Structures are given as structure tokens and as C-alpha cells.
């Protein structure tokens, strides 16, 4: 009997990286898990590897598109009857540049990917959670939701906004049985970081390796985080005993963030 027995979770961007680790940890605790992603092949591959066909489901959906976010929640409810736990994990940023050179499109894209997606999925999932008097929303933020590095302002801005939304939602929902928290990991070498890291590094005047070093050297542990570190905290927040934690921006960053 796991800590999440009987629960249904949706993890956006759940095929790989942090989302995948959270999906695995939730399954291990007895939840049913719906993962979303833009790539159907990667989704099918993830389901195959998770190897619990009755307890998992993949929905092809682009977090940057409202209709996809809302359809993902609706389809999850259709498949497993409800959504107890929503992990707004999909996110990232492309086309980094210093603010003086930044395009409107880059900021807009980052906001859609991180902020709008969190808003769209949460809004859709919330009403049934409130009606049932139980829910967990876990937003994937970043250490960059608390501090700010040069050259990646679109990501910093979007993650700070996610933290603000988290706090406001937690106050709105405080007495409803629905908690809302954000996880703020330090850098983890996931697929998305490997894909977008070189561009971000260039905007910061660094190589990719120097970018990773810049993050690890700020930490006390002097190393990158692992996806499992984040998943363990997600399990705690999603469980019954997490009921007393809401509106928190929890650092999983090896001692990087100053607060």
C-alpha cells in the first residue's frame, strides 16, 4: 500500500527528465499516472518502459497550446475518472538573449511554455478538485524562480511568475483541501537542458560546460541535482501527510538559493 494508492496524477512533460522520474515515483507509491508530451514516439516509449499499462496513459499534447492543456486534463478524467494530483512540469525556454537583444517571440514562447501551461492545466483541473475537497498541484519552478542569472531573463521571468501564481493559488484554495506548491530545483542535466543549454550558455557568454559549472559552483554540494531528488519531494507533497504544506517554494538545489 503506497502513499498514493487510489490517486490519479497528471504529469505534463512526463516522457523524459524530471517529469518521468515523478511519474515513476508516483507509480511506485500506487498512483495511476497520465503523462503528456509533444512527441508520440517518446510517449509510447515511456509507457513501454514504465511497464504498467493498466496504470499509465500517454496523451500527446503541447503545453504551449491551451486546447491541448485542457484536453489533457479532460482525457485523464475520461481515462481514470478524476485527477487528484496535477504536476505542471512541462517547461523550458528557447532563443535566449540578453534583454537588449531579446525578441518578443522568445518571451512569449517562454511564458506559454512555463506560465500559461501551468495556468491552463490548473484552471481545468481545479473545479473537480475543489468539489471533491482534495487536490494537489505541484508546479515545476527552478532555482531561477528565486534568483536571476544574466542572459536567461525569459526563463527567470517565467519561473518567478510561476512562483507568484503558486502563492496566490495557495491562498485562494487554502481551506478547500487543495494544496499548491512549487519545486525549485537546481540544474539537472535532463534532455531539455542538453537541448536548450548551449543556446542559454551562448547568451550568457559561456560554453555549455561553463554554464553547468556556473550552477554547480553556486551550490554547497558543487554538483548537479538528480531527477530522483525532485521526485521524492513531489511524492511527499502529493501524499496525505503533505496536507499542511502549501504556498511553499521548495528548494532542491544543493544549497544554492539564498532563501
Amino acid at each position, binding site marked *: 500500500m503506497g502513499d498514493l494508492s487510489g490517486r490519479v496524477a497528471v504529469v505534463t512533460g512526463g516522457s523524459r527528465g524530471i517529469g518521468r522520474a515523478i511519474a515513476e515515483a508516483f507509480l511506485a507509491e500506487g498512483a495511476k499516472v497520465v503523462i503528456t508530451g509533444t512527441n508520440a514516439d517518446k510517449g509510447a516509449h515511456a509507457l513501454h518502459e514504465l511497464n504498467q499499462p493498466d496504470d499509465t496513459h500517454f496523451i500527446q499534447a503541447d503545453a504551449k497550446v491551451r486546447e491541448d492543456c485542457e484536453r489533457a486534463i479532460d482525457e485523464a478524467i475520461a481515462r481514470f475518472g478524476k485527477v487528484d494530483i496535477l504536476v505542471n512540469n512541462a517547461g523550458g525556454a528557447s532563443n535566449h538573449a540578453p534583454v537588449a537583444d531579446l525578441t518578443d517571440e522568445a518571451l512569449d514562447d517562454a511564458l506559454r511554455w512555463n506560465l500559461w501551461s501551468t495556468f491552463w492545466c490548473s484552471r481545468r483541473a481545479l473545479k473537480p478538485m475543489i468539489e471533491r475537497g482534495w487536490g494537489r498541484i505541484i508546479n515545476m519552478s527552478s532555482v531561477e524562480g528565486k534568483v536571476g542569472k544574466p542572459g536567461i531573463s525569459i526563463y527567470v521571468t517565467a519561473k518567478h511568475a510561476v512562483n507568484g501564481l503558486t502563492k496566490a493559488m495557495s491562498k485562494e484554495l487554502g481551506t478547500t483541501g487543495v494544496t499548491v506548491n512549487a519545486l525549485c530545483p537546481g540544474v539537472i542535466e535532463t534532455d531539455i537542458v542538453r537541448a536548450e543549454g548551449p543556446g542559454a550558455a551562448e547568451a550568457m557568454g559561456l560554453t555549455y560546460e561553463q554554464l553547468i559549472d556556473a550552477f554547480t559552483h553556486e551550490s554547497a554540494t558543487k554538483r548537479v541535482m538528480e531527477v530522483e531528488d525532485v521526485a521524492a519531494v513531489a511524492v511527499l507533497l502529493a501524499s496525505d501527510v503533505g496536507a499542511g*504544506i*502549501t504556498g511553499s517554494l521548495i528548494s532542491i538545489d544543493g544549497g544554492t538559493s539564498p532563501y
Partner: protein
Amino acid sequence: MGKLEGKVACITGGTRSIGRGMAEAFLREGARVVVNGRSADKGQQCLVEMGASDRVAFFAGDATKQSDVEGLIDFTIDHFGHLDICCLNSGGVAQTAPVAQMSDEEWKLEIDWNLNHVFWGMRRALQHMIPRTSGRIIVTSSVEGKLGKPGIPGYAATKHAVNGLVKAAAHEVGTLGITVNSILPGLIETDIVRATGPASAAMMGLPSYEAMLDLFAQESAIKRLNTVEEVAAVAVLLASDAGRNMTGTMFPVDGGTMPY
């Protein structure tokens, strides 16, 4: 297989309330635990209530006394062979007052109890953990470690101070396999709060003890107090292998009270 199989923990102020909750959670996860408190009677009663297995022991000592705090660390290492998890949990106020009326005696007591005890325990534990390149220090701080209510200045000051100590120590030992974190609970109706709460409420200018509980609850998003079990679950996470990359963190268990 528990999450803390083979681990040894000690907990200051572990016979009742938050510390007791941590002790029970650690035992459930397979750890061996030494609990501490001033009263030998309460200690023995605690052992009986927890099943008095050979995985749990009691050490009588006063958290405001350096020799007692260091004695707990030494006793744990002697008794169970080593120390993996050091929970510096004891703390509180005796007869608090607004700054203008605060006595030197109370101020010194709160510094010894809430801050020096954490330093004494952390220093002794780290001296054991650093050569082993493994360990967990978990400090029970408070929402008052980030806020500051009127009438409890010593508590707010010392809980802020331990958060600073936690951050500095986390960076000192960050590459040595040792994490140092604090947990910041909202108000929980523990024995110590029941005992000292009415006087604290008066010092805060509130009409009653219940009004103080209500003030804390109303500041939160969940509009209720927190529970011992909620704090203990976080302690298990920080103490477990899964917590290895969380350090220097002030982990809130406050129902959405603190602004950061």
C-alpha cells in the same frame, strides 16, 4: 525495507510533540533512535509508549546546557556505534516579553535553548560526521525564523539565527556528504506551546491563548494549525537517501504562512 534502515538518529527534546513524532517516524523507517529530554520519568514513559525496543534509547539532558547536548551526541555514538542523523529540535520560550520589558535572564535562556544548543549539537555531530563523509543535520526552526511577531523577540531572533547557522554550515560541508537543513513549522499545539502559550499570548497583547492559536491559523492559507506528523514526514525525507541533494534549505511546513 524502511527508508532509514541501518541509520542512527538522536533528537533533542524527543520525548514529546514534534521530536517524538520524528522519533516514531524514524523508528517506522528502520532507524535506531536516541531521544532526549530533561525528565527521566517522561523519558521512561516515552520508551514504554514507543514499544521500548532495543532500537530506541533515552538520554536525560537539558538542551540549554552544553555538556548535556554534547553528552547526547557522545552517548548516541557509544550506544549505537555511530550517528547519521542529528535532529536539533528542542526549543521554546520560558517567560517571554516585549523587548522593552525583556529580562537578561530570559534573553540568555532563549539564546542558549534555541541557538547555542543547536550550535553545540551541530559542532559535536559534524566532528563525527565529517570523517565519515556522511550525515544529516536537521534543525527545528519556525515560521518565526522568517517572520517576527510582537512579544516573542527572543524566539524570533534565535530562530532567524539558526537559519543563518544552517545556511553557513550547509556550505561548509556541502561536498562532504553531509546535509544541513531546517524545518520551519507553523504553530503546532505541542506541550511546550500549551505550557507557555498563555503567557506568550498575553505578551503579544492578545486576550487569550485561543486568540494566539487563532492568530497563527488565520495567517496561514489553510486556516488551521500544523501537525506533528506533517513535520515528521519532512524530517524523514531530509534524513533519507532521497534527501541527499537538499541542503541549506529552510523547509516550510506552515500551511502557506510565510511570504518566502
